[in-house]
């Protein structure tokens, strides 16, 4: 009974959660979606590298001044008290991600994610130094010659410079960049140096080496994206009804769309895809597609495909260029896979091949699963409507809140040491500290007064007070309220703070205490 159960870990090492990663050598691609991505890269990285150098009203346009706890974003200044706006903005960003994912898949991943954008630039550098896919693979497989050392060395040098510049720009958002540039590199502060190197190192590692592994293993979004997908979500899809059975052919065979064969029925097409994935052709083997899709349950055996006559073939010529261009190294013909970052490179590649063959474009295209399966697509689904409405409300509220922010915050603290005191005339006095924050970019003057409706004759000791507050300054103003000697018990008072040279007014409630009756 007490005999231990024999145990053994099935996997040979502890890395069972991760497949061993091959290096992916994405082939260069040109086409509409690639142009779109290049435009996105230029625009987004342009914003990142240029914004800290812009000036606005004589100061750096975007400066997140952590040491002074003030964030300058163009004409606006945000203080820690405005944290609500930042958190709302993050909620809006998350909701926008849900909305666009449900609507059109991983648009963010393919075009706007910093990981994609910086990886794209590191790939440009790699191509520029080492050539396209085949040259790079040859170089990696070959011995260490003078040329290999030169090419690899120049790539690493450019990567390092690019990473350092990125780290420098990043720190330039927090520390005035012109000043930082003037102190390059020996007068940088310790923490500035540290963060420049840290961010540079992260860029170098993520964009240069980890690449698609960040998307597959590190990114939380990739792990839960499937919760937002349904059959009406726009995805990058291969049309197996048109493409299968795949195979090389002689020139001159027309597209299935122009032949009597026409589109296959769904069951046959998906069966061909499944069998081709289990019995890859020589070309497929060379392309070495990764990916984790399970096209059928365990134990189901796939029969090899027969040899098809030319007129039976679909439009896919099995050139595997769609696999070669994929930055995550998957075969899109196996269907939607969680590795797919929806960059559209396979669409561009396949369209190019279709053009060469004289076939209509769109064997791989942006489509919904319903569309591919010949059903109607519904764009307006409950989740789209709900996400959309929430997004509209939040964006509207945020815009209103940011544009209608009061330039003034005021709080009152009662003096804790004494409930009340009496001056030489017997008047009852209470002391307070008024905390006043000027959130505007300019200097302003404010008038402080007290209002006590049920205590006639109450005023500040020396009459209404005018104070000056610099931009972003937090003032502590000690004030004393003086009431007539007959006042007893607790009374409500209100402090009114009015802007002299700015339209701002705040009333702060507090209490006034006299002797017990």
């Amino acid at each position, binding site marked *: 009974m007490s*005999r*231990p*159960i*024999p*145990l*053994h*870990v099935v996997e040979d*090492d*502890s*890395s069972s*959660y*991760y497949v*061993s*990663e*091959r*290096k992916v*050598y994405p082939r260069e691609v040109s086409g509409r979606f690639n142009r779109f991505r290049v435009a996105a890269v230029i625009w987004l990285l342009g914003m990142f590298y240029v914004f800290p150098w812009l000036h606005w009203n004589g100061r750096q346009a975007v400066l997140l001044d*952590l*040491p002074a*706890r003030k964030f300058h974003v163009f004409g606006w200044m945000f203080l*820690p008290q405005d*944290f609500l706006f*930042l958190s709302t903005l993050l909620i809006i960003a998350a909701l926008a991600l849900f909305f666009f994912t449900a609507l059109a898949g991983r648009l963010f991943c393919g075009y706007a994610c910093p990981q994609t954008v910086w990886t794209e630039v590191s790939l440009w550098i790699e191509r520029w130094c080492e050539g396209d896919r*085949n040259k790079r*693979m*040859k170089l*990696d*497989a070959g011995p260490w010659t003078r040329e290999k050392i030169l090419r690899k060395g120049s790539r690493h040098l450019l990567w390092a410079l690019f990473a350092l510049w990125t780290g420098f720009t990043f720190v330039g958002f927090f520390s005035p960049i012109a000043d930082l540039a003037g102190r390059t590199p020996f007068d940088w*502060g310790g*923490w500035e140096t*540290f963060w420049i190197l840290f961010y540079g190192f992260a860029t170098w590692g993520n964009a240069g080496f980890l690449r698609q592994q960040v998307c597959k*293993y*590190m990114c*939380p979004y990739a792990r839960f994206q499937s919760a937002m997908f349904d059959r009406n979500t726009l995805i990058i899809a291969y049309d197996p009804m048109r493409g299968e059975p795949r195979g090389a052919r002689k020139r001159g065979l027309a597209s299935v769309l122009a032949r009597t064969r026409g589109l296959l029925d769904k069951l046959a097409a998906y069966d061909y895809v499944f069998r081709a994935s289990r019995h890859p052709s020589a*070309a497929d*083997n*060379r392309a*070495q597609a990764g990916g984790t899709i399970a096209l059928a349950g365990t134990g189901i055996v796939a029969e090899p495909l027969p040899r098809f006559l030319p007129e039976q073939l679909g439009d896919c010529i099995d*050139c*595997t260029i769609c696999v070669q261009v994929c930055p995550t190294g998957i075969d899109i013909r196996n269907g939607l896979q969680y590795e797919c970052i929806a960059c559209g490179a396979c669409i561009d590649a396949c369209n190019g091949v279709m053009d060469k063959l004289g076939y209509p474009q769109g064997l791989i295209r942006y489509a919904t699963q319903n569309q591919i399966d010949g059903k109607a697509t519904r764009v307006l689904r409950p989740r789209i409507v709900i996400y959309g409405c929430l997004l509209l409300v939040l964006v509207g509220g945020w815009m209103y809140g940011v544009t209608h922010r009061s330039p003034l915050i005021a709080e009152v603290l009662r003096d804790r040491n004494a409930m009340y005191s009496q001056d030489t005339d017997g008047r009852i006095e209470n002391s307070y500290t008024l905390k006043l924050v000027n959130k505007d970019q300019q200097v302003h003057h404010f008038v402080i007064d007290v209002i006590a409706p049920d205590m006639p004759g109450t005023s500040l000791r020396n009459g209404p007070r005018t104070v000056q507050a610099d931009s972003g300054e937090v003032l502590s103003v000690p004030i004393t309220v003086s009431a007539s000697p007959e006042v007893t018990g607790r009374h409500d008072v209100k402090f009114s703070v009015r802007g002299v040279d700015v339209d701002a007014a705040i009333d702060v409630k507090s209490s006034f205490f006299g002797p017990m009756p």
Partner: protein
Amino acid sequence: MAARAIKPPEQKPAPAWLQCAGAILWPSFFVAGVVTMVFFAYVDPVALRDITFPSLKLGRELGYSLGFFLIWLATLSSSLFTWILLRPGRSARCGSSLTSKAP
């Protein structure tokens, strides 16, 4: 088309300890970043210094960085602890020599 015959060269997989280190370091770093942001949005490091170690000359930059690394240390320990708890038992890892002599 002959150039297409090239196959990507074989590569050694990353060692298991590296993958483990990544799985422990990365989530703790991510959470520490978020926590640091929220914490220091409400707490001024200088005010924090004044109520804890007023005699130390800590500036805000040092305060933020120190705070981040302390929080990372905490989340890192938690990740590391989870890893220790989730490891298979010694007998399973090493193949239990006493019990595996079953017929």
